[in-house]
């Protein structure tokens, strides 16, 4: 699954993250490979607890340690390996090369500083500007995300949720990073605001030529924004490919299950088909396929060992042994419309 000769903004190989707590070792991320080309958007999809946020935090080396432990071959961002960096170098990379939009705008902003100060801080650090100049630029950023510059002197509690998320976006983009990680940027927002924020992110991404990783459990957003998709389950990527490959030629039973869980607005009579059961306890993961206990197609072989990645054409890969049988196909049929 290599993509040589292309300029990669991100190249992560065999990323593992575990938390060593009193109650046992939580295996949050278990061998994730991500490669992303410049200016592309990758959707990282999966249910809560799949390890998406941990993956993102690990790429920024923001996993608190202890209890977190990162093991990885390499995390190369724009040609630099984050794994070999000193704290000082990491500070330089964060915010400038790679930055992050957090899930909950209500808690992501520091309540005791004005939004202007919070945007300016990043500019001050990375562009070595004076406090005053940084603030001027912060006001510009604020206007860029659609907030009147005059509000730069106000505090987070004076803003609505959607406005706060715009501020968070402004902070993330303040230094024009090459890679932007957006962790469920719209989950905490009203539906109407969601659309606005997404639109804003799409526009700014284009304007700044930023590459992006969008973490979400909302397949609708993925379809709208992403070029490529990775489906994550229990700390592993179970299926990956272009948007078209994963959405129109779904291979993994878990991905199928995700689609089955979305209400279909065109066919109100169709029933939801939720995935039964829960994700396995990350302190004691099964030896075989982690999805086997919930999988309608599971056989005894599934519980024996981790399925390997299988090439499905194009850039499409799936981790499922069912495809050892050339006639196997999942039930989901792609209907156009």
């Amino acid at each position, binding site marked *: 699954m290599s993509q040589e000769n292309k300029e990669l903004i991100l190249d992560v190989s065999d990323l593992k993250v575990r938390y060593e707590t009193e109650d046992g070792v939580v295996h949050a991320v278990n061998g994730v490979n991500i490669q992303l080309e410049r200016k592309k958007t990758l959707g990282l999809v999966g249910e809560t607890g799949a390890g998406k946020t941990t993956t993102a935090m690990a790429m920024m080396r923001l996993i608190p340690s202890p209890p977190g432990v990162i093991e990885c071959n390499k995390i190369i961002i724009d040609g630099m390996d984050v794994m070999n960096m000193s704290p000082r170098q990491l*500070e330089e990379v964060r915010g400038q090369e790679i930055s992050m939009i957090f899930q909950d705008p209500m808690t*992501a*902003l*520091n*309540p005791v500083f004005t939004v202007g100060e919070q945007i300016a801080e990043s500019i001050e650090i990375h562009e070595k500007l004076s406090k005053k100049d940084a603030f001027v630029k912060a006001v510009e950023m604020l206007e860029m995300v659609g907030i009147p510059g005059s509000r730069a002197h106000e505090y987070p509690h004076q803003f609505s949720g959607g406005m706060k998320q715009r501020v968070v976006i402004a902070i993330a983009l303040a230094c024009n990073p090459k890679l932007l990680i957006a962790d469920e940027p719209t989950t905490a927002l009203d539906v109407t605001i969601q659309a606005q924020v997404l639109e804003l992110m799409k526009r700014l991404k284009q304007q700044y030529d930023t590459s992006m990783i969008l973490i979400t459990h909302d397949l609708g957003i993925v379809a709208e924004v992403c070029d490529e998709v990775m489906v994550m389950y229990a700390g592993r990527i179970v299926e990956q490919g272009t948007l078209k490959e994963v959405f129109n030629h779904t291979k993994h039973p878990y991905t199928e299950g995700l689609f089955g869980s979305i209400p279909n607005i065109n066919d109100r009579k169709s029933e939801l088909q939720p995935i039964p059961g829960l994700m396995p306890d990350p302190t004691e993961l099964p030896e075989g396929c982690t999805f086997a206990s919930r999988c309608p197609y599971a056989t005894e072989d599934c519980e024996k060992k981790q399925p390997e990645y299988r090439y499905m054409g194009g850039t499409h890969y799936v981790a499922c042994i069912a495809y050892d049988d050339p006639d196997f196909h999942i039930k989901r049929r792609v209907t156009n419309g």
Partner: protein
Amino acid sequence: MHRYIIKRLLMLIPVLICVSFVIYFIMDLAPGDPALIIAGDQATDEMIEKVREDYGFNDPLIIRYANYMKGLLKGDMGSSYVSKKDVWETYCQRFPATAKLSVAAIIVSLVLSLILGVYSAVNQNTWKDNVSVVLALLGLSMPQFWLGLLLIIAFALNLGWFPSGGDLGGWRSLVLPAITIGTNNAALMTRTTRSSMLDVIRQDYLCTARAKGVSEKKVIMHHALRNALIPIITIAGVQFAYILGGAVLVETVFAWPGVGRLTVDSINMRDIPMVTGCVVITTMIVCVVQLLVDILYAYVDPRIKAQYTK
């Protein structure tokens, strides 16, 4: 904001009336006849009776209290039964020593508790944390007067670095009493700082700050501490007010000529105007410090400021 301050100052009036009445009333219940103290040891019965007449001790309590309040409204706190000196003047003579000690002590405790508390929270559940937790617990369990005595034995009597008592002017005589009070307060404040920092340290906005490239030191000292400050200054304010009101024990141990000793001595002498005066002024100071702390909140946390101006 100004309206809030004025409102708070007006609320002081009923508090002071209450406190002065309670103290006046309690002191009146105390055994011992103030007339005997005023008239002196060799006084005859007639002389004592005359004192009773002059001072109005034969009037009912409520009349005496009303007379006292009449004077108080005019700014006259009466004069001591014992020394015959003006209460306000006597208090003012003693206050500078107390103020000096209070400021020094609160600086000691702020420095100690912020360093230990933040350090402890950042290293939660490691041996470093455990050491500071135990230190704080020790400080909390040590009677102030005993710590003072130990410091005297070590640093005044054995090493001879500092004087063992009295306010000799200069900073040397201030060191031991300030450390005694400061250590004791620091113990409580370290615990507050630690738990307040632990509340803040897992907040998302610190992650936002780290993701911006802010250095870890600045994340803790700037972003986190600023948010953890409210409970810390609350405790610091209360402690500061108490020391200002009279660190009786430390003043006793170090023979420090502050208002705490003045109050206790007057209580022992049944010097009602002096006691009432001291307690009223002390309460006033406590309330004003409290108000200052509340105003300080507004500068630390903009959300609180918004509440005041409502």
